[in-house]
């Protein structure tokens, strides 16, 4: 027993164990969200979705996962084998690495670094490389199409997204995500979406710009995770399946997992920046280490729900319209907001 405790107290072992917490979270969250999305979609569309496996089909995602595990892992003959195998893992690594700086609760953050959100933006950009790799390595024209579209889309939408983050960072004066959250502590009135924890005049001046930045970031985050109305890279009716056309079995499952993990990631960024992260909306009521984890996941899931809701309601944009929205609408607005926030913060 003592041996085990001593082993667990080794710094290296502790670090590995701590690093596994987000992974476990992602796996559980993905199963829940797959079920959740299917059920939400079904109820939006007047259907029932899974009803057979377990109570209201709750264990269907596990069955789906087991099915994917058993599937034959097909690699096309003319594919670039090395890149083909590497791509899904690279996509997942990009997403998983981003979870390192996510403040899950007041007591837990993978790595409390001062460059938090900067690191996050950089790490999640790794996803693009993976997608391009997948599209190129598949040796399929549709995959290539999907990969190029997703690269163009994600890179374009990172600009308004990062500009929105910049505006928020200007207000907080820090890139540390834990500090950002703590600055919004004390109840719903201190959340940045309502102007943050500032004197009343400044708060009122900040409010409209924060709201615009929130919308900008929300839209660009939806584009970054390839969800409708921005799901062009995997537009089923146009590109068959986009970059993952040729993927099957576990590799496909990893793409799927990364996509869902990414969905939570961008939702979590919105929550940390504008909706007070893990802080309780009722001040000190229901706050504490465990409660804060609860609030964080709850808030994150509400934005995941928003994404699902939009996905099953809206049609898809066209490539040129997508670029138009990014470069001619979101980016100028974001720049304008940054200038305005600069003035407000100086005054």
């Amino acid at each position, binding site marked *: 027993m003592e041996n085990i405790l001593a082993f667990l107290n080794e710094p290296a072992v502790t670090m590995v164990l701590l690093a596994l917490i987000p992974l476990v979270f992602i796996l559980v969250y993905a199963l829940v969200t797959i079920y959740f999305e299917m059920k939400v979609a079904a109820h*939006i569309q*007047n259907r029932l979705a899974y009803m057979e496996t377990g109570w209201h089909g709750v264990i269907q995602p596990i069955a789906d996962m087991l099915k994917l595990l058993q599937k034959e892992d097909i690699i096309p003959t003319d594919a670039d084998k090395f890149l083909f195998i590497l791509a899904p893992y690279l996509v997942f690594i990009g997403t998983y690495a981003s979870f390192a700086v996510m403040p899950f609760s007041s007591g837990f953050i993978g790595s409390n670094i001062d460059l938090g959100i900067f690191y996050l933006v950089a790490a999640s950009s790794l996803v693009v490389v993976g997608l391009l790799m997948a599209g190129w390595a598949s040796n399929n024209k549709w995959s290539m199409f999907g990969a190029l579209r997703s690269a163009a889309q994600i890179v374009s939408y990172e600009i308004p997204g990062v500009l929105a983050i910049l505006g928020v960072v200007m207000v907080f004066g820090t890139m540390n995500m834990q500090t950002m959250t703590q600055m919004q502590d004390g109840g719903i009135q201190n959340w940045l979406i309502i102007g943050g924890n500032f004197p009343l005049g400044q708060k009122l001046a900040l409010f409209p710009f924060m709201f615009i930045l929130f919308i900008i970031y929300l839209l660009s985050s939806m584009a970054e995770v390839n969800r409708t109305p921005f799901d062009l890279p995997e537009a089923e*009716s146009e590109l*068959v399946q986009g970059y993952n056309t040729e993927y099957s079995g576990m590799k496909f499952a990893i793409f799927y997992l990364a996509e869902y993990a990414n969905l939570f990631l961008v939702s979590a960024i919105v929550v940390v920046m504008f909706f007070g992260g893990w802080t309780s909306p009722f001040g000190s009521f229901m706050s504490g280490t465990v409660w804060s984890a609860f609030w964080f996941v709850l808030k994150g899931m509400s934005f995941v729900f928003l994404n699902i809701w939009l996905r099953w309601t*809206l049609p898809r*944009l066209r490539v040129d319209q997508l670029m138009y929205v990014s470069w001619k609408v979101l980016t100028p607005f974001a720049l304008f907001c940054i200038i305005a926030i600069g003035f407000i913060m100086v005054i």
Partner: protein
Amino acid sequence: MTETHLHAIKTSTGRTLRTEEMVVNMGPQHPSTHGVLRLEVVLDGEIVVDVIPHLGYLHRCFEKHCEHMTSYQQVIPYVDRMDYVAAMTNEHAFVVAAEKLLKIEVPERVHYIRIIMAELQRIASHLIAIGTFGIDMGAFTPFLYYFRDREKILELFEMTCGARLLYNYIWIGGLSHDIPPQFVERTKEFCTDFKKTLKEVNDLLNYNEIFIKRTANVGILPKDLAINYACSGPMLRGSGVDFDLRRDDPYTLYNKFEWDVIVGKGEMGTVGDVWDRNIVRQREMWESLRIIEQAIATLPEGDVQKAVPKRIRPVPGDAYGRVEGPRGELGFYIVAEDSVTPYRIKARAPAFVNLSVINEISKGAMLADLVAIMGSIDIVLGEVDR
């Protein structure tokens, strides 16, 4: 084989970059070719340079089969299977042609029931057309809303003749069964309920800002081009041509009812764009409901099998009968010899004719627009290939 072209682009640093057009095969296994159509598409990036449709993956020799029956009545199950989402219309078209050939006068009740069935079938077919078009645009939900209501129509058909998709209901000289007693009441209920869905989907899809952006000014089919390519149905009316066989060549008793021919007006963009074609279908469903309501209210009594001939052996000759199907002018040309089977049957399939225009209207469009155009043409491969 299509030809691709090389382009050279000079960059600002003086280097020459080479770009190349790419040939991609859309189909026969592709989610948005509505069956087994294969499109050979030449793409310059996202821009469509050329489209060549390749047909025949679903060719089942129906026209030839029809010559080897033991009776004219046996042709009807075959025509069912041509346009399998509008089987009633196909039967109706064939029967109109055959009755012209045989010079049979059918009772008024048969005409009324045929009109009710044809209009219900038109609604069912348009529901699929608009629903799948929505899927092509990335909107999945309206499709399922429409399928829910299509199910109600199929239930009405099932109640009447036992079949849900391929009916063999409209016979030469009559119908296989009279309508069941509760049919009238259920149809009235459907008409009331369905109006709600129509309004709902208008909000969700047809007047959705993104949807309008995607479909307005896309795939414009000008009036003269539509006429030159012999387009018909919503394709033709979407281009602003006021022509509907139900009014202009009344084949049953359509002129007894009050209804309007819907014509595309280019409300959101140019006349004849994808949005116009889609909205023509949407509004035609309202008109179909008007016809059904009037027909149900004034349904005459009678024996639906009174005029069904026991044995069909026409005088040698030929006849062409046509109806306004959901996709356009559906016609059957029958050549009869002194025999119990037709010598030759030719179907004029509207989907086939409408498809021929795709090359003209999709050049220069984007790949996503090509999918939109395909969806707005509303093809059924069973009918294109026969």
